[in-house]
């Protein structure tokens, strides 16, 4: 997805608040110019070479920038740096990521993850040192916790320090529509950012594998080989060269992809709960929980197919689903799953939930609620008519369809004009040449364009909220600096006000971020 104007501004603000204005200056240059070399960065930022180098080190350490180079037959290799927009935006979600781990696993694992989120990437030795110094945990229990995190795919090996990218013959653009034959092929990443991420990612065989013998110094010289997932294939020597051979240090980081997958599943479940009922939510949660590790990418349109028996077993294992019968589960599955899916004739039929449809309905609801709040009930009705129709409709027909008893017919164009002016509708003038020439307006909801506009507005709002938060922090600074025993009388009232202000602003930002994820990450 292309970066929006306020998306970049919000990302820069996040980096400024986390790492200061020097690092943010470097990051902004990269976000605005896609990818740059060190020399170009020094030129654009007008900072000293050492300042730029330190800023890049910090951004790479925190997985916000990925170095790479193009495959060149002649001439020296020039390292390029690209900002990873999604990873920057994820920085505001770290609290949510910790909450996911405490729900999925338990609070002991939180400590290791917290250290990884704070420091970006760490060696196993550093992780153990950190856990031991902050809590009276033994080396074995830390290792066990770490293993569980890697097993659950919440922690992964860091990508290659500097992958080599094949020079693209044509400029990156939207992927061409594929025919029926080529539809089976794996879709080629379209943007340079996606290509870099794909090139840097360690192969699945070693992404979640822990080679204790290669990190013997961290674990007191243990030589046993603990592998998670698939075992590492020793035949491929290229892996060793790029991803931590014996003399190279293996670095670990939080796997944002897995956290976003969990939050996506949670959003689907909550939307089904709101749209249908608690029982449907229980069934969907059971389906997604059983197949989470089998999902290949985050934005899967349908969940991995499962048999009715497997789903039912998962459902009754959960506390909320013990009272459900097989018949009830089957009924709920027929509602949740796409009716057009082909099913096996035998009893062991497989079901796959249509996640794309669930999320699209949630997006529709979100935009409709914005229109309702901003433009009123009549505008909401018109917008909903156009959204459901999915085709251009003439002004008079909209008036007739909406059956607005309180609104006169001449009010309809004004309402539609307001929506069009703010980019919530697409308008076209049609000229009909007949006995006499006449022109009329047709309106439609162009979802991809409008959704992108809504996303940009959300980034804008998030930026404003963050700025207001920073402003309030500054305003109440003298109160927050006071020790607790001095907070008396008027000061105590001021402190309570400050606490409420921060809570409301920060919680609003977290809620807004849920909507942001719905449009950008899910």
């Amino acid at each position, binding site marked *: 997805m292309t970066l929006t104007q306020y998306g970049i501004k919000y990302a820069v603000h996040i980096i400024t*608040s*986390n*790492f*200061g*204005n*020097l*690092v943010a200056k470097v990051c902004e240059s990269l976000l605005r110019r896609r990818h740059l070399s*060190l020399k170009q960065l020094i030129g654009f930022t007008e900072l*000293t070479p*050492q*300042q730029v*180098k*330190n*800023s*890049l*080190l*910090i951004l*790479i*350490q*925190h997985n916000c920038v990925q*170095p790479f180079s193009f495959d060149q037959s002649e001439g020296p290799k020039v*390292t390029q740096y690209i900002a990873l927009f999604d990873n920057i935006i994820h920085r*505001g979600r*770290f*609290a*949510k990521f*910790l*909450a996911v781990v405490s729900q999925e696993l338990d609070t002991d694992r939180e400590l290791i993850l*917290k*250290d990884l*989120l*704070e*420091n970006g*990437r760490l*060696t196993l030795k*550093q992780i153990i*040192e*950190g856990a031991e*110094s*902050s809590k009276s945990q033994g080396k074995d229990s830390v290792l066990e916790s770490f293993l569980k995190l890697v097993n659950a795919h919440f922690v992964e090996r*860091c990508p290659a*320090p*500097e992958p080599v990218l094949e020079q693209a013959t044509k400029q990156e653009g939207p992927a061409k529509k594929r025919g029926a034959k080529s539809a089976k092929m794996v879709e080629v990443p379209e943007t340079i950012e996606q290509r870099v991420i794909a090139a840097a990612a360690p192969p699945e065989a070693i992404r979640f594998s822990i080679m204790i013998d290669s990190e013997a110094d961290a674990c007191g010289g243990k030589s046993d080989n603990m592998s998670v997932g698939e075992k590492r294939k020793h035949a491929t020597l290229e892996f060793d060269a790029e991803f931590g051979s014996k003399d*190279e*240090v293996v*670095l670990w980081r939080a796997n944002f992809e897995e956290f976003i997958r969990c939050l996506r599943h949670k959003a689907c479940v909550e939307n089904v709960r709101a749209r249908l009922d608690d029982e449907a939510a229980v069934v969907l949660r059971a389906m997604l929980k059983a197949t989470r590790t089998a999902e290949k990418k985050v934005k899967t349109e349908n969940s991995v197919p499962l048999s009715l028996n497997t789903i039912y077993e998962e459902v009754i294992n959960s506390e909320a689903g013990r009272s459900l019968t097989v018949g009830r589960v089957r009924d709920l599955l027929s509602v949740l799953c796409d009716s057009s899916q082909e099913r096996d004739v035998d009893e062991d039929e497989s079901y796959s939930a249509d996640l794309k449809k669930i999320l699209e309905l949630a997006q529709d609801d979100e935009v409709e609620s914005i229109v309702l709040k901003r433009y009123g009930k009549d505008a909401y009705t018109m917008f909903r008519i156009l959204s459901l129709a999915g085709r251009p409709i003439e002004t008079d027909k909209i008036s007739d369809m909406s059956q607005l008893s309180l609104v006169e017919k001449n009010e309809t164009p004004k309402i539609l004009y307001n929506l069009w002016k703010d980019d919530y509708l697409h308008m076209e003038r049609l000229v009909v040449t007949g006995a006499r020439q006449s022109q009329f307006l047709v309106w439609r909801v162009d979802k991809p364009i409008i959704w992108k506009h809504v996303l940009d507005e959300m980034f804008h709002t998030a930026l404003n909220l963050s700025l*207001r938060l920073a*402003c*309030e922090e500054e305003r109440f600074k003298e109160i927050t600096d006071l020790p607790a025993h001095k907070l008396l009388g008027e000061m105590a009232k001021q402190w309570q006000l400050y606490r*409420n*202000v*921060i*809570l*409301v602003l*920060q*919680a*609003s930002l*977290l809620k807004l971020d849920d909507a942001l994820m719905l449009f950008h990450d899910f």
Partner: protein
Amino acid sequence: MAYRGRGRGGFGGGGGGFGYATQVPFELFPDIDLPNVKGILDPDKKINQGKSEEENLVNQSRKFQKIWKGSPFYLEQTTSKERQNTEVERYSDRLKPKTTIRRGALFDILELKAFPQELTGGSRAQQPGRKRVRWNPDSELQKLDLFEKLEQRQGNNDGKEKKEGEGEDEDEEEEEEEPEEDFSDDDYQKNQDFDDDDDDFNMEDDGDDEPLL
């Protein structure tokens, strides 16, 4: 309809007459009444430690923010003495429980092998981590000042005498004596190549480039 400056009303054609917009003082963030956000300030929805889920998320987000602000990862354009003073660990601090590993300066945390060589400077990777000093943005300017002084000194001694500061450390912060200015070699004193703009080389202006009226 309130509008700025003179002129007719906008969309719809109405709103005639002339007038000026009343000047209102600009306020970036005006005071607002706080909404009682459900689940945050709602006393019924409490989960652990008497706090709601949102409240826990808010507190955790703020903790992260605090940690990064005080870490070596935080680089600002201007380095104040205050920020550097906060890095000093007091004797009393050793008893305080540490929530994270205290990883000193920036280069103590980073595993330099995992970065492109142009950022780590190649040889730096072999050095032991503890000896790496914290980066100071003013160091570049200090070096430039030092080189400038050395250049001046070299010019004055005509390259005969060896520079005093040559064997010393680059980052030395002691102020060196400014050499006394000697005007004996100056062109102004000698009056050589002095052009008072009234000699044979200045051609008389025949005025042919004047504009014709």
